[in-house]
């Protein structure tokens, strides 16, 4: 939201009842573009970047724009997106977790080793590995919030130490196969065609019903609403994206006619199952507002009576918990866990969040930014891989994209300080 405010306070022609300037669709669009120009752009540039990359790779590679690769891309990005969502929480309070990747690897290592050696049911092993992930977050959070060590140092230490721990858990040169069907299903199975359509209807219906309900509530309380065309635009766009994607994914994509491969990947469902409640937590609960407050001005948050240090600890627990889920997803995708699992993913995770539009300076960003950013990083990886260009180029391009996003973030912050916006 970015409405021009008069710098002077001589404005007296406002009704007391009027709380909202109702803008037409055109004005809203103009104010949005104005915001983009001034650097308050969220995931918009990343979304454009994603589309550009998709078009580019579609021309360059005949394999890129196929049902098979589309499903593959979504599965490929899922562990990254979930890790990045955990990092969004941490970046929102202006901290960093360099150990998120290693935590994800350690969680998957603990899962396979415990399952193999203790003979406990698979679901108990999952719970155990998630609990260990959350416990890691608790330990990091206490170090940062109570002891007062910068999170960069604490998590760097954890990054090193947990690699060692993972090596000890797995054993030198060890390699464990993932054999649990439930875990393998996460990254390898698909929803049935019918379920895919049902999911699409639920998603679009949710956007529509939620928008209408919010309008009704506001009208009942005497508040003005934003132009209804904005809601229609939002519903139409999400319907277009969701239904097209589901249609495309529901087409048969297997090369073996004996074995039908079609449907929305389960990985998409897993991402949604993490995304929706966490977005609710951030947007609609006091805790969520406090997270943004601590990221924006910790001193103001403290004076407002928010327990800043326990909030920090909880955030690190959420981050590490999501990292553990990401680790199980990665294990499902690769099919094996070794001592190096998760070692390199953390930087891609930070890149995904920042490319998606999450600020490194705290207080600005959404979980959906991690989804868009994760897709951008995954599409670079996927597309350049298909072109069989050298792997070095892939890393260099990803690094360049990250630097661009971080530059945009820093410039928008600088602009904000200069103009007081």
């Amino acid at each position: 939201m970015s409405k021009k405010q008069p710098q002077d306070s001589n404005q007296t022609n406002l009704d007391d009842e009027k709380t909202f300037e109702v803008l037409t669709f055109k004005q809203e669009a103009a104010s949005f573009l104005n915001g983009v120009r001034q650097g308050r752009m969220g995931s918009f540039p990343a979304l454009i970047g994603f589309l550009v990359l998709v078009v580019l790779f579609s021309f360059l590679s005949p394999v890129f724009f196929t049902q098979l690769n589309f499903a593959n891309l979504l599965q490929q990005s899922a562990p990254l997106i979930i890790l990045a969502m955990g990092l969004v929480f941490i970046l929102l309070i202006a901290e960093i977790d360099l150990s998120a990747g290693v935590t994800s690897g350690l969680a998957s290592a603990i899962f396979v080793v415990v399952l193999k050696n203790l003979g406990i049911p698979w679901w108990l092993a999952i719970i155990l590995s998630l609990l260990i992930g959350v416990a890691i977050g608790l330990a990091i959070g206490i170090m940062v919030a109570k002891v007062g060590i910068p999170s960069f140092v604490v998590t760097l230490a954890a990054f090193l130490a947990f690699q060692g721990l993972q090596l000890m858990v797995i054993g030198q040169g060890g390699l464990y196969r993932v054999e649990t069907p439930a875990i393998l299903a996460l990254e390898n199975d698909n929803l049935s065609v019918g379920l895919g359509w049902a999911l699409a209807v639920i998603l679009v219906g949710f956007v529509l019903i939620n928008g209408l309900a919010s309008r009704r509530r506001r009208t009942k309380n005497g508040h003005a609403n934003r132009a209804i065309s904005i809601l229609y635009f939002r519903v139409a766009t999400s319907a277009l994206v969701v239904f097209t994607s589901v249609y495309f994914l529901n087409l048969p994509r297997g090369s073996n006619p004996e074995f039908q491969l079609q449907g929305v990947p389960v990985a998409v469902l897993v991402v949604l199952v993490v995304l929706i409640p966490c977005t609710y937590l951030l947007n609609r609960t006091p805790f969520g507002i406090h997270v943004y407050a601590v990221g924006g001005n910790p001193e103001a948050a403290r004076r407002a009576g928010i327990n800043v240090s326990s909030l920090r600890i909880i955030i690190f627990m959420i981050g590490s918990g999501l990292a553990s889920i990401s680790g199980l997803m990665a294990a499902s995708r690769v099919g094996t866990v070794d001592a190096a699992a998760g070692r390199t993913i953390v930087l891609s995770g930070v890149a995904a969040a920042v490319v998606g539009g999450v600020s490194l300076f705290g207080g600005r960003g959404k979980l959906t930014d991690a989804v868009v950013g994760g897709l951008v990083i995954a599409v670079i990886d996927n597309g350049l891989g298909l072109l069989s260009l050298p792997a070095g180029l892939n890393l260099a391009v990803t690094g360049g994209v990250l630097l661009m996003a971080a530059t945009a973030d820093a410039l928008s912050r600088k602009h904000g300080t200069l103009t007081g916006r």
Partner: protein
Amino acid sequence: MSTPNVPVIELKSVAKSFGAVQVLSGVNFVAMAGQVTALVGDNGAGKSTLIKGMAGVQAYDSGTILFEGNEVQIKSPVDASNLGIEVVYQDLALCDNLDVVQNMFLGRELVRSISIDDETMEQKATKTLAGLSVRNISSVRQKVSSLSGGQRQTVAIARSVLWENKLVILDEPTAALGVSQTKQVLKMVRNLADTGLAVILISHNMQEVLAVADRIHVLRLGQMVANVKASESNLNSIVSYITGAENLSISGEAAL
């Protein structure tokens, strides 16, 4: 509101020293409900130390604090806010990345089942601003980062009204503002007192103190040298109290 003629807060011969430096000695101070009580004095006169004692940031060494006639101890900011004392500091402590409503309700969000009750908060915020005749904020849903200095001050002051406080302490609310914004904020300060709160206003600008305050307390070198009605004083007399040209010690009660 409280019984008339019982001060919301009354300090009796409070003292504070830092090592050998006596910052406050035998200071009496009174703030009544429905009045703006100005606290003026030169730099180093002890204004901040006096305020910090009431805010619970830094306790006095000796002396008595009466809150609505009862003796109280204010040892921490929590004690102060439990009594209904709210301090609006110069640095305002607003979150730039949150909107006006979110800032006003920060830490005390209204909740319906488990989600925040945005509509009610928006309504209450709008009502509070309207109650203070605030007209310089057109949308309570805009981010604080897009507000001017005067608008931010407005938000910070309005926040203190929302929570049934009895005493609001404003630390130089107009120090960084331009002319028209200062006018707006001062009008709001007046409205704040007219709603029945006791308002303590710290300021360096004598013109605005004379314009908006009911009573003026003058601190000089840690002593209360004047407690006068604003309507019965003028710029010259206040300045001479501040500088010490006219060093009369007036007891708080006698002048009421």
